[in-house]
């Protein structure tokens, strides 16, 4: 299962690039803010340009927030089971509010939605 680890030394980081023939489903997110200098608000965005459709002849880049986490300074929370119900149709991006912090580390574990026997 692939994963992506980034530090929030810059305010906006890309976690996963888009794969055209699959949506991205996160399995868990782990945020290490133990040595962070401040509380962090992390927003996970879905970034994509839609296809040309009947109603939209010239699509433009969309940034849709899918999840927001408020992370206390000195903590390292993780999310697990409920994450699998969220999907990203495009690129996964994380944005840190409240200033950059190289000691705030985001680990993002995910899979592409194309596992065969998963009929739901």
């Amino acid at each position, binding site marked *: 299962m692939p994963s992506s680890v980034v530090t929030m030394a810059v305010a906006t980081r890309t976690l996963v690039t888009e794969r*055209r*023939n*699959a*949506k991205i489903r996160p399995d868990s997110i782990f945020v290490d803010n133990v040595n962070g200098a401040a509380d962090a608000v992390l927003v996970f965005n*879905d970034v*994509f*340009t*839609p*296809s*040309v*459709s*009947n*109603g*939209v002849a010239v699509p433009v880049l*969309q940034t*849709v927030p899918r999840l927001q986490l408020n992370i206390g300074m000195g903590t390292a929370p993780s999310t697990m089971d409920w994450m699998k119900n969220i999907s990203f*149709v*495009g690129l996964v991006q994380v944005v840190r509010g409240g200033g950059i912090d190289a000691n705030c580390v985001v680990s993002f574990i995910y899979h592409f*939605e*194309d596992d*065969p*026997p998963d*009929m*739901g």
Partner: protein
Amino acid sequence: MFQIKAMPQATVTPGVPALLQPGYYVQFSDSWPGNLSVTYQDKKGATRGIFAQISRTNQVPYDLSYIIPSGDFRDVDFSNLLSTFNENLYPQNPITLYQTQIGFKRGNFLAIRYIPAGEYVSRLEQANMVPNVTSATLRYLGAIKWQDSPYYDKRFYFYSVYNMEPFILRLFVDNGVDFEKVVMGLTINKCYMNVIDPDKVTDEMRSRSLKIEYYLDERW
């Protein structure tokens, strides 16, 4: 021309191939129009569908995907006729048959079939009972959902030949999401046909053949 295969009531071992294989027979119905290469004129001048044996096949997988906003749709044109949304998925050779399997990854969308553009494949007999994506109820009439033909168990089949009218699949994203990524998995089974002289076709060959109807036979 179209098939949505139901779940089997029983299974057989060894399994039967889902796609046409070399040696298989196909028979085009007599409703196919005379301007297409899968017909011939009989001795009385009537248009008849050809009978053929598949001599070669090649399975070509292909995925198509579109991100569409809620309440909007995209008309995917399978033909080779140049248009805004055509995908060039028809044969170019007059004696090639494309057997196309179509499956979908999960998502909040409906797929409605038209051939040619604007002409529904599925409708009921009462005049108003036609697919309509602007209606909260009629959008579900005749619509295929991803569960009807999942990506890894494709049950929706479509047959195309050279110069046939465009088949349009309207992919409509239903309410409840902001955007949906519609992923279609295709397996295009390229079948090279050897036409058999109608006088040499036996009843046994006919009984073993796959009969391919013209869409007008199915849209009654």
